C-alpha cells in the first residue's frame, strides 16, 4: 500500500516585515516580542511598502536593522517630531515610532505630548520596562516606588525622586489622541491582546483618526537582575498593579472595528 504524501501546511513563519537577522537583544527581552507583533500587523495590513518607521535612542536604536521597511532614526526623545515631519509631507504613508520609557516619558515628554495634542496621525509603540535599559538600568520616569536601579540603589524614594508617570493615562486626556491603551507582554494571552491593540492603533492611523499609542509593559531581565521567568512574574505582580492594563481612549469611530 502506498502511503499518500503528507501535505505540509505552514502555520508559522517569519513575517515579511521582519528582516532575517539575529537581534542584539538580551535573552528573554520582550523588545523582540514587540518587534514581531508590529511586523505581523504590518504584514496583515499589507502596508510594508507604505510604512516609514522611526527608531529612537535606547536598546531599540537598531530597530531599523530588524524591520524590513524604510526607517529613520531620531535623536533621543525626538521621534514624534521626526515622525511628524515624515507624515506631513507623506500623509498617505503609515508612520510609526518605537520608543522606550526614558526616551518617550523623560527626555521626549515635550515631543510626545505635543504630537498627541496636535492629533498627529501617527502610531506610537511605547515600551515601558521601568528603567533605562541601554545605559545600564538607571531610574526612568516609570521606575516603581521603592524599585532599585543603578541610579536609585536604595530604591526609588518618591520624596526625593518623585513619582512614576502613567503615560497612557496622561496622553489619553488630550483631545488629539484617538487610541491610547496599555497592554503587557509577560505571557501568551497578554501578547495576543497586545497584538490586537497594535492592529487597532494602525487602523486608527489608516482611518485618519489621529494619534494612537500602545504602551507595552516589557521586561528587562538583564538590568533587573532576574531570569526571564522571574522578570515576567515581576511584571504581573509589581508592574500591572501600578500600570493597569486598560483602554484609556478609544475613538467612537473605532467602536465597531473588530480585529
Amino acid at each position, binding site marked *: 500500500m502506498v502511503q499518500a504524501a503528507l501535505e505540509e501546511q505552514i502555520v508559522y513563519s517569519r513575517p515579511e516585515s521582519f*528582516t532575517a537577522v539575529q537581534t542584539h537583544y538580551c535573552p528573554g527581552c520582550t523588545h523582540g516580542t514587540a518587534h514581531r507583533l508590529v511586523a505581523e500587523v504590518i504584514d496583515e495590513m499589507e502596508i*510594508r*511598502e*507604505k*510604512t*516609514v518607521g*522611526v*527608531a529612537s535612542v535606547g536598546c531599540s*536604536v537598531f530597530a*531599523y*536593522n530588524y*524591520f*524590513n*521597511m*524604510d*526607517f*529613520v*532614526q*531620531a*535623536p533621543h526623545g*525626538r521621534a514624534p*517630531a*521626526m*515622525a*511628524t*515631519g*515624515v507624515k*506631513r*509631507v*507623506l500623509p498617505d*504613508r503609515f508612520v510609526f515610532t518605537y520608543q522606550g520609557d526614558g526616551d518617550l516619558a523623560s527626555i521626549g515628554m*515635550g*515631543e510626545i*505630548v*505635543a504630537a498627541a495634542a*496636535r492629533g498627529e496621525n501617527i502610531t506610537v509603540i511605547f515600551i515601558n520596562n521601568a528603567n533605562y535599559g541601554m545605559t545600564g538600568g538607571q531610574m526612568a520616569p516609570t521606575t516603581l516606588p521603592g524599585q532599585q536601579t543603578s541610579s536609585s540603589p536604595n530604591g526609588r524614594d518618591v520624596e526625593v525622586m518623585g513619582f512614576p508617570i502613567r503615560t497612557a493615562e496622561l496622553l489619553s486626556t488630550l483631545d488629539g489622541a484617538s487610541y491610547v491603551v496599555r497592554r503587557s507582554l509577560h505571557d501568551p494571552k497578554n501578547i495576543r491582546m497586545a497584538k490586537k491593540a497594535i492592529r487597532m492603533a494602525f487602523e486608527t492611523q489608516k482611518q485618519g483618526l489621529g494619534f494612537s499609542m500602545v504602551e507595552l509593559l516589557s521586561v528587562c531581565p538583564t538590568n533587573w537582575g532576574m531570569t526571564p521567568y522571574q522578570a515576567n512574574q515581576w511584571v504581573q505582580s509589581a508592574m500591572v498593579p501600578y500600570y493597569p492594563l486598560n483602554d484609556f481612549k478609544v475613538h467612537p469611530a473605532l467602536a465597531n472595528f473588530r480585529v
Partner: protein
Amino acid sequence: MTKEMLKGNVAIAEAAVRAGLNAYFGYPITPQTELLEYLSARMPELGRAFVQAESELGAVNMVYGAACTGARVLSSSSSPGISLMMEGISYIYGTEIPVVLVDVMRGGPGLGNIAPAQADYNQIVHGGGHGDMHPIVLAPANVQEAIDITYNAFDLAEKYRTIVVILADGSLGQIMEPAELPEMKPLLMRQPDWATYGAEGRPKRFLSSINIDPAKHEIFNIRMEQRWQKIIANEIRFKEYYLDDAKYAVVAFGTSGRIALSAVRSARAKGIPVGLFRPVSLAPFPEQALYELSKRLEGLLVVEMNNGQMLEDVIKITRHQTPIDFYARTGGIVPMPEEIEAAILRMVEEPVNTTEHPRDRWLARLSQELIGGS
C-alpha cells in the same frame, strides 16, 4: 519682473516658496517671526505642509524627518532658538540630509534682546553642534541678496547633501526695501536614491547618524571632510568694493558689511584709499582671496556686531601680512556709519601697535566710553 517693497523675513519666506519648498516647521521668536507668520498662510494656500512646532527642538526634528523623505524643507529661528536646534543640526549633518535653515540673529548671550546682532558667528560657522561638522553658511547684506541666496540654497544643500544656513540678523529681517522675486519653480516630490519614503518595489533603506563602529565613523568623518574640500573649491563667495587701488580695507559681513560700505564711501570722499571686502560665504570662508588682499594693504579693519568672532579668523587667515584693527558694537547695538568711518580714519592716522591683540585697543576705548573709569 518688477521690484516691490519687501520685508527681509517675508522675502526670504517667499523666495523659499518659489524655490519649491515642500514643508516648513518653525517656532515664533523675534526678530524672525514674520517668516513663520507669512508661511502659516502661504503654505496651506498652496497645499504645502506647515507646522508651528512645540519648540525649536520639535521644529528641527520635524525638518529632519521631512527632509529624510527627499522633500525641500526649511526652518527659521533666531539665536536662542538656534542654540536649541544644535542637537538636530548635528544629527542632520551626521545623516547627510539636505536642509536649509535661517538664523535671524539677535543680541545675546542668554535671552539677550531682540535687536540685531552677529554673535552667532562662532556657534554656526565653527559649530552647528557636536562632532566634526561644517554647515555651509551664507550671509546676505540686503533683501535682494537674501532672496537670491535663499532661492539657490536648496540646490546647494541637495548638491552636497548638507546643511545650508542663511545667517541674517534682526536688521535684515525687519528692513523693507525694493527687491525682485524670482519665478515660481514647479513643486516636485523628489525621491532621491537615498531617501526614505516607503520601500515600494525596492529594498528598504534607513537613515541614521549612528555608526557604532569607530572605524566606520572615522571613514564617515574623512568622507565628509573630503566633501568639504569640494565645497571650498566650488562655493566660496565674496563681494569687493573699491579695492582696486585701496591701501586699506574693511572686512565685514551682513549688516555690518552694508553699514561699512557707507562708511567706506564717505572716507573715500575724504580722499582715503579704502575699500570693503565682504565675505558672503562665511563657511567656506574666502580665505585665499583675503590673504592675497592683505598682502598689498597697509591696514585692515574688521567690523562686526559681536566681540570679535570673525576677527580671530581674519587674524589667522592674514598671517600678519598687514596690521589689523577692530571695531564692533555688540549686545544688539548696530554701529552707525560715522563710527565706522571714525575707525577707518583712526586706522590710517594712528597705525595699530601690532604687538597687542586688535581687540585690546577696541576694548579699552569702548570700556572708557561706555562704562567710564579705568
